[in-house]
């Protein structure tokens, strides 16, 4: 699973993997299942400035001194575990910029979580990977922006390609399963063959080719990032040929960009059913992009227990069940399967988060999506040559976008 990372957290969280289990929808309101999946965004600080990052564009409003302390995070981990959380994502920003990462991992391991570090690899020295291994870290997901140094470095607005390659070797040396995450979009999707070959030469066991989902910074850059239908078709063909060649040696996940679909993704398996995200300042969200949703006041772990937040807070109960739904979702036989799709997407595209996700062709707003794809697929679509400059994720641009 994956979301356009900050540190490239991949697409993970937005589209749960096929094996992800959800709580039965009927039991949710009043008696939700456990927040099986806890994502801790430890910091917004990141050495990369990726144009497709899902982090909120106003992240610069959170000053570093407002970020949760080590003790706060440990309390969140304990309370989450008591509620039944088992799968832990440590993400950001770049989690390695926190010098208490090893302490947090150690506590999580002792509590019995399966611990995933979602990282750009920047800052992962041999000393730190050894300390993380000793602390009990189970898995590292490493992001790459492209198979070539030029594009990798351009997209992240840094010079980091060689460094990442060294980190990939360290991950193998310390016997971690290697999961490479590459967020795909218009500017790198034609390199899928080279990206897969790079992953193979690094000995990756899993590769996530996660097409950009349009939230946060990616939403602002959507016209530059959305691929054409033809680009997507070629990339899928290439991926399938590669899969046939490598067989089960490597698992390649190709997350199709949902703008090209006719039915929405069952986003987060329904808000408040499985996923709990805690942002760097302690705001608790039912999805890592949910901060953008209007009308809801999200609770903070500094003020309330994780148990109250998950079970009782109005924000987490709001989208449980289906009483919030409008037509065509409300009477749709597929509502128990896709939960009406993504609330954030409905809001970004239609202005009302309670509408059907416009990716669905039953939505009266579906044309908004197809028009965007048509535009991206037209012969005179924007070329990778920058006419409208890409907006890189950094504090200066964050302030400019939200002032």
């Amino acid at each position, binding site marked *: *699973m*994956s979301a356009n990372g900050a540190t490239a957290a991949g697409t*993970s969280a937005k589209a749960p*993997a096929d*094996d*992800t*289990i959800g709580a039965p929808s009927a039991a949710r309101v009043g008696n939700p299942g456990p927040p*099986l*999946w806890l994502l801790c965004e430890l910091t917004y600080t990141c050495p990369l400035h990726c144009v497709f990052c899902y982090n909120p564009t106003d992240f610069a409003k959170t000053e570093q001194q407002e970020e949760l302390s080590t003790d706060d995070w440990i309390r969140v981990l304990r309370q989450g575990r008591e509620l039944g959380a*088992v*799968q832990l*994502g440590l993400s950001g920003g770049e989690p390695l910029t926190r010098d208490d990462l090893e302490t947090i991992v150690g506590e999580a391991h002792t509590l019995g979580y*399966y611990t*995933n570090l979602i990282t750009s690899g920047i800052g992962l020295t041999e000393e730190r990977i050894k300390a993380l291994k000793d602390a009990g870290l*189970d*898995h590292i*997901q490493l992001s790459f922006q492209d198979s070539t140094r030029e594009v990798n470095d351009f997209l992240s607005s840094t010079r980091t390609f060689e460094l990442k390659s060294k980190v990939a070797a360290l991950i193998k040396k310390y016997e971690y*399963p290697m*999961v490479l995450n590459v967020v795909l979009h218009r500017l790198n999707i034609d390199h899928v063959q080279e990206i897969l070959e790079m992953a193979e030469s690094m000995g990756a*066991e*899993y590769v996530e080719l996660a097409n950009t989902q349009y939230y946060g910074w990616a939403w602002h850059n959507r016209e530059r990032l959305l691929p054409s239908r033809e680009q997507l078709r070629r990339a899928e063909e290439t991926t399938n040929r590669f899969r046939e060649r490598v067989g*089960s040696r490597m*698992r390649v996940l190709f997350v199709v960009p949902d703008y090209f679909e006719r039915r929405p993704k069952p986003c987060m398996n329904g808000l408040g059913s499985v996923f709990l995200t805690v942002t760097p300042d302690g705001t608790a969200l039912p999805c890592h992009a949910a901060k953008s949703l209007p009308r809801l006041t999200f609770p903070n772990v500094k003020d309330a227990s994780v148990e109250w937040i998950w079970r009782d807070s109005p924000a987490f109960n709001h989208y449980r069940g289906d009483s919030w739904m409008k037509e065509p979702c409300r009477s749709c036989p597929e509502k128990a399967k896709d939960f009406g799709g993504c609330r954030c997407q409905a809001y970004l595209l239609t202005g009302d988060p309670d509408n059907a996700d416009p990716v669905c062709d039953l939505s009266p707003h579906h044309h908004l999506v197809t028009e965007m794809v048509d535009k991206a697929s037209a012969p005179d679509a924007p070329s990778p040559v920058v006419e409208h400059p890409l907006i890189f994720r950094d504090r200066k641009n964050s302030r400019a976008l939200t002032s």
Partner: protein
Amino acid sequence: MLLYPEGMVKLNGSAGEIMKRCDGVRTVAEIVADLESTFATTGLEKDVHGFLTMALEKRWLEMRA
């Protein structure tokens, strides 16, 4: 519950019993024999093979020579 990189799956009873026995030491034949004796039944080989094949494809398990 089986946890793996960025994923999880709730195994049903039989799958859980098979998985518990995959310890990197026992052979498939030994696992089948153990299951058949524990549950006082026979003919589990096909089911065990079916599950292991799927688990290998999903990389829940690794094959050792």
